[in-house]
């Protein structure tokens, strides 16, 4: 029973981190109608910068804020330089460019920092807690992860459902020409969408890095799980990303805990296949368009 409980808690902690990655993917999809394969690599680069800030002698939180700010800037810059020239062409072009950018960034990071692993601290203790006589595998850091990811999801819900800015961003993503005909300035909003989603990616990276440690490809695996979660939950739903993240985290934990760690990737694959069979558009996606 305690084993089951601890596996579940571990799955929730992993799942929330996966959800953070998925939320970044949902954000960019809703704001610009593409998926960004380079999101993890961009966050990786930013985390190296945060690492440098940290080793200047700044505290964790200063590095944290610096990382988010750098993420915003990096996202905006990437959109202006790489993606804007492709505006008006098929979204597939931009998606392929993000894939190339992923490979490019990992190469650059390898060249600058090498493949040696660096440890990155957590802001709170990563040790499990004792409640009464039972050892619980849920640390103060895990609590922080849960709260941070919930905050991100709520901010996204408020942005897209409750604000004029979010309404404009959605219009720009799904119907840029119609948006312009309604007086919306398209370009700055696309840039903003990239900036925000890059920052969300950085948040995810900062939650992953204490357990995975920092290398040029430390975001690869979690990005794949993030895609799993986003596909399961529906690419356009923040709540779906959270539920998809938890489903992914728990599947990984149960399969890893009961069947062995080498089967974990299979668990994610099985989850995607099953959920696509049940609801191809994603569990929380809007109803499929009706063409008239």
């Amino acid at each position: 029973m305690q084993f089951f409980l601890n596996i579940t808690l571990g799955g929730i902690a992993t799942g929330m981190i996966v959800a953070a990655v998925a939320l970044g993917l949902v954000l960019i999809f809703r704001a610009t109608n593409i998926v960004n394969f380079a999101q993890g690599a961009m966050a990786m680069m930013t985390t190296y910068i945060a690492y440098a800030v940290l080793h200047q002698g700044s505290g964790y939180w200063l590095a944290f804020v610096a990382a988010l700010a750098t993420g915003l800037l990096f996202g905006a810059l990437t959109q202006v330089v790489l993606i804007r020239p492709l505006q008006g062409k098929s979204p597939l072009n931009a998606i392929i460019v993000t894939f190339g950018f992923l490979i490019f960034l990992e190469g650059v990071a390898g060249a600058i920092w090498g493949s040696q692993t660096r440890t990155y601290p957590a802001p709170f203790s990563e040790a499990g807690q004792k409640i009464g006589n039972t050892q619980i595998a849920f640390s103060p850091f895990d609590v922080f992860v849960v709260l941070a990811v919930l905050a991100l999801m709520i901010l996204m819900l408020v942005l897209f459902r409750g604000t004029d800015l979010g309404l404009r961003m959605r219009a720009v993503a799904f119907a840029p020409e119609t948006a312009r005909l309604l007086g919306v300035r398209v370009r700055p909003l696309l840039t903003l969408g990239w900036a925000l989603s890059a920052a969300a990616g950085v948040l995810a990276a900062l939650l992953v890095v204490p357990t995975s440690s920092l290398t040029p490809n430390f975001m690869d695996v979690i990005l794949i799980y993030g895609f799993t979660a986003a596909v399961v939950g529906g690419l356009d739903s923040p709540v779906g990303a959270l539920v998809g993240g938890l489903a992914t985290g728990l599947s990984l934990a149960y399969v890893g805990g009961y069947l062995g760690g080498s089967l974990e990737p299979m668990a994610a694959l099985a989850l995607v296949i099953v959920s696509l069979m049940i609801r191809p558009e994603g569990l929380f996606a809007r109803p499929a368009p009706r063409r008239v």
Partner: protein
Amino acid sequence: MPVLEIEDLSVSYGAVHALTDVSFSAAEGEVTAVLGANGAGKTTLLRAITGLVRPRKGTVRYDGEQLEKMSVEKIVRHGVAHVPEGRSVIEEMTVDENLRLGSLFRFSRRQRGPVIEEIYALFPPLAERRRQHANTLSGGERQMLAIGRALVSRPKVLLLDEPSLGLAPIVTARLMAVLRDLTQASNLIVVLVEQNARSSLSIAQKAVVINLGRVVVCEDAAKVAGDSELRHHYLGY
């Protein structure tokens, strides 16, 4: 009295001359019907007015300004609303969100509610579906939403590209009646592109017939509707 004035407008897509030296003007409180066969250049004309395509030469003047040099967003903020071909509602949004989007640049948060209610009063079927996603609407409801979303910003110029396409005759008739009343009540300048010449001529004061990118007729609508030879020749009825 402000008019929409189009002078010597020419638009090309590469080697294709879609419009050549098009000139006409559209007055306040009037519906100007633009007629012509498929490929005549009607859609191109509206897209050139709102800046979605740039003319090779010529001018578009409204209210003392030259529109052909402004950005699309600026033209729209100037009071020119364009309902494009094919019911361009945003399917991912609810009816209410579509209308809210149309009102954003003109009205403050507090003013928006009443303005949107006016649109619901104009098109009651939309009022019953305000929380529904636009992709669940019928063709006619989509057209109402597309027009309502253009009207919600209280434009001075309304450009409509084939609003009756695919609608039942009775729905078209109702739509035309709404347009006629609205044009007079709000002193709108309406440019109405239609394949359905009969129904658009019934509410228009002026008619512009385009053939192969050139204006071949620019007359009172009543005269065009009464001239059976002209109708046979260009409008096929």
